[in-house]
């Protein structure tokens, strides 16, 4: 297991917790260390406890653990909230000059640094978090120069004066600790490497995937935690001739995206929670009119407004079954941040190849977590674009009926019709949410209805055959114990394998990025003695579909506290489940 360091800063929302954490994460990444971050935040802008946690190691880290080594506490609550993660070797940096009397358990090392005064000396109280970062560098033996790089990146745009003041603040923190404390007994000495890493979160990976895949139009309506996809695309998509519109609501957003797709653009929208419900109306139209569209659902905790800043994987049934009538669709769910990139690219290809809506289902934990990767993990040369049966003028000619009308919804063997976009000569046609004939014109003829329904459903059958609906696998492929997961649980599960192995428990992990169609796991489940499905919801929605597929009961591990799985916790849960009787 990686020798890692766990660091956190916590305070009131509005204290700049997020940006401070991000700066430190970046500094660590610059120093060739792997980073995995997590955030606790409340659904309010000012006030309310908020924390940014960083786990860092020279080896790849992909989960949170129950341990905190260095804590920057701007409030007493920060200490209280994290008490059970602190241990004897923990150091707590706090500002003794502040009005609160910090209560720090005796066995821990209290590092009282006058954050505010030192920041003021360096040019402004606002930099007190940076003073704390400098102090943290000293405690951990981390070279403050890496912090300089991160500060340049962060504040470079605001002028050299600001950058210099911040560097000075960091040095002040570092020197204060050096002069007033001897912390060698803590034994921290952070190793660095020459590796170059990139540090990004799941939503950024989705946005980057969209740009790489040729997405040129995005319409959305702000909602946590999907908004940062829109924020990422805004300001970047223009470089490629594209555009982002903040629509008046989700109904409008998805309809705009649909319009752009009919115009021939690769087009996308993203939302969460209530927004996905609003989009469901048009979701049917997208399918019925056979429009290629990527709809991202970054799940948060529901129902209704639920816990908007908390983790959950509760929308799977919605993605699978949402919408009136029977709607052919694809549901793709990335299992890691790199997969957020690759599956987004794939979602655009699937949408155009099969002329269907594609749900790209991710979750809050993945969307806000920053993680380091070698840049090659996003190798742009590997990106392939497949626009499917997009026809030009000559090809369109082959699809005209005897009267010269373009058969936009031609009944084909593979279920996919030719697709012509405006400007294609002689291919003008109508598409509609009404049931229609091959030309797109309304029909209620029994034969035509059946033909069109079958045709649309056939796309899914064709895709089942043509595409790889595979899974990712970890652990021991021959183990008797099988654990199945989807979405962002993969990282924690993979790390849990180390704990389980240490206890002599062999586990095979299957992480499934495709919800519909999905890989058939019958063989794998039959080969195992025990099967457990792990997911962040109360009812086991994925477990339900697996049981439905294989006609066997599986065990379930469900977490719906609003917090993602931790590796050590999952290992315990799995151990416990393995001895439990399967419900009859």
């Amino acid at each position, binding site marked *: 297991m990686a020798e890692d360091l766990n660091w956190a800063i916590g305070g009131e929302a509005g204290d700049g917790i997020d940006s401070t954490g991000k700066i430190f994460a970046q500094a660590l990444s610059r120093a060739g260390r792997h980073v995995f971050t997590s955030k606790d935040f409340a659904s309010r802008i000012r006030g309310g406890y908020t924390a940014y946690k960083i786990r860092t190691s020279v080896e790849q880290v992909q989960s949170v653990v129950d341990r905190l080594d260095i804590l920057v506490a701007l409030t007493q609550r920060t200490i209280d909230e994290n008490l059970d993660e602190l241990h004897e070797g923990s150091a707590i940096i706090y500002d003794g000059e502040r009005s609160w009397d910090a209560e720090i358990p005796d066995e821990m090392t209290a590092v009282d640094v006058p954050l505010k005064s030192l920041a003021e000396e360096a040019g402004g109280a606002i930099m007190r978090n940076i003073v704390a970062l400098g102090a943290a560098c000293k405690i951990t033996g981390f070279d403050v120069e890496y912090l300089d790089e991160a500060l340049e990146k962060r504040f470079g745009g605001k002028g050299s004066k600001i950058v210099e003041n911040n560097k000075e603040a960091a040095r002040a923190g570092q020197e204060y600790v050096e002069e007033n404390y001897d912390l060698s007994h803590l034994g921290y000495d952070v190793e660095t490497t020459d590796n*170059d890493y990139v540090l990004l979160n799941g939503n950024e990976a989705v946005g980057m995937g969209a740009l790489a895949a040729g997405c040129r139009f995005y319409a959305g309506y702000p909602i946590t935690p999907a908004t940062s996809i829109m924020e990422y695309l805004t300001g970047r998509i223009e470089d490629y001739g594209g555009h982002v519109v903040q629509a008046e609501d989700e109904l409008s957003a998805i309809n705009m995206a649909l319009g752009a797709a009919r*115009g021939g*653009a690769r087009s996308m929208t993203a939302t969460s929670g209530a927004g996905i419900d609003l989009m469901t109306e048009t979701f049917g139209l997208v399918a019925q009119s056979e429009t290629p569209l990527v709809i991202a659902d970054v799940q948060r905790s529901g129902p209704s407004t639920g816990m908007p800043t908390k983790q959950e994987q509760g929308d799977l049934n919605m993605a699978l079954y949402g919408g009136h009538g029977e709607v052919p669709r694809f549901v793709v769910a990335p299992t890691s941040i790199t997969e957020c990139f690759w599956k987004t690219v794939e979602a655009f290809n699937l949408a155009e190849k099969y002329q269907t809506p594609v749900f790209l289902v991710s979750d809050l934990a993945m969307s806000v977590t920053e993680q380091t990767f070698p840049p090659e993990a996003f190798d742009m040369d590997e990106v392939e674009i497949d626009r499917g049966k997009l026809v030009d003028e000559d090809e369109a000619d082959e699809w005209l009926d005897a009267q010269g009308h373009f058969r936009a919804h031609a009944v084909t063997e593979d279920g996919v019709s030719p697709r012509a976009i405006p400007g294609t000569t002689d291919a003008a046609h109508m598409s509609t949410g009404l049931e229609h004939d091959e030309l797109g014109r309304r029909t209620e003829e029994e034969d035509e209805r059946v033909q069109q329904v079958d045709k649309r459903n056939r796309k899914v059958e064709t895709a089942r055959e043509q595409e790889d609906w595979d899974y990712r696998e970890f652990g021991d492929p021959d183990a008797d114990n099988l654990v199945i997961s989807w979405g962002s649980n993969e990282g924690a599960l993979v790390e849990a394998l180390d704990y389980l192995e240490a206890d002599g428990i062999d586990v095979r992990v299957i992480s499934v990025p495709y919800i519909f169609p999905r890989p058939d796991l019958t063989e794998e489940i039959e080969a195992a003695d025990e099967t457990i499905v792990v997911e962040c919801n109360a009812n086991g929605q994925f477990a339900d579909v697996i049981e439905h597929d294989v006609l066997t009961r599986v065990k379930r591990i469900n977490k719906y506290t609003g917090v993602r799985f931790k590796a050590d916790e999952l290992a315990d849960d799995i151990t416990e489940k393995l001895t439990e009787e399967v419900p009859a």
Partner: protein
Amino acid sequence: MSSDVRFTDFKSDKQPTWCPGCGDFGTMNGMMKALANTGNDPDNTFVVAGIGCSGKIGTYMHSYALHGVHGRALPVGTGVKMARPDVEVMVAGGDGDGYSIGAGHFVHAVRRNVDMTYVVMDNRIYGLTKGQASPTSRSDFETSTTPEGPKQPPVNPLALALASGASFIAQSFSSDAMRHAEIVEKAIEHDGFGFVNVFSPCVTFNDVDTYDYFRDSLVDLQEDEDHDPHDYEAAKEVILDSEKEYQGVMYQDENSVPYHEKHGVTEDMSEIPDGAPEDAMDLVREFY
């Protein structure tokens, strides 16, 4: 585009199922004429239709078209135009479609000033669902769901557009064929969001707002030499006039700059590279 396009080229060979005498026939003919007269042809035209008797228009016209869900035609048109500034976009729907379920979208489409033409077939009733009150129904208009009338004043769509910052506001009457086509033509030619509310009588369910009523009461702004559509105050006056109803162009902002020009959305978004763009690795490097 070819100059020999005739308005019949915009006609599909599907026979309308509108009631004989429905105002929508005239509205549609005018739209087709206006499209042809402004030099468009079906291959570069995209018609988005709402839901209702009015929304059936997309079926009876020939062009690239989408018939969507109730009330959401304007966002679809917005998306088409953003992706394809080269395409002529026309959006059509009814008063229920546009001012009830779609009222929010109307306000925002107006203020975005996307370069498209929005034609609302205002029959002051829900036709397709067989005669319920619409947002433009008179407050004492008795229907199956409002036996004593809607008990609330009607929406004034022109005023709603004006308040939302419209750059082009017009009203026409489907049976005054020449004028109607002419007004829609002006809306198409307008650089920005061209809004036309068309009185398009429902002969089956509305016995108040009839052809005769409009014929007798409508005042044509063309005959009012004093009306200058570029004069905002004058526009306000006719739009808020509670005594009379007008046809003609009420308001046109001479300085209107359509959304795509203002915000540099001028590229054909349908063309993308075969793989990731050449400099795409820069996107990754940003995260160093």
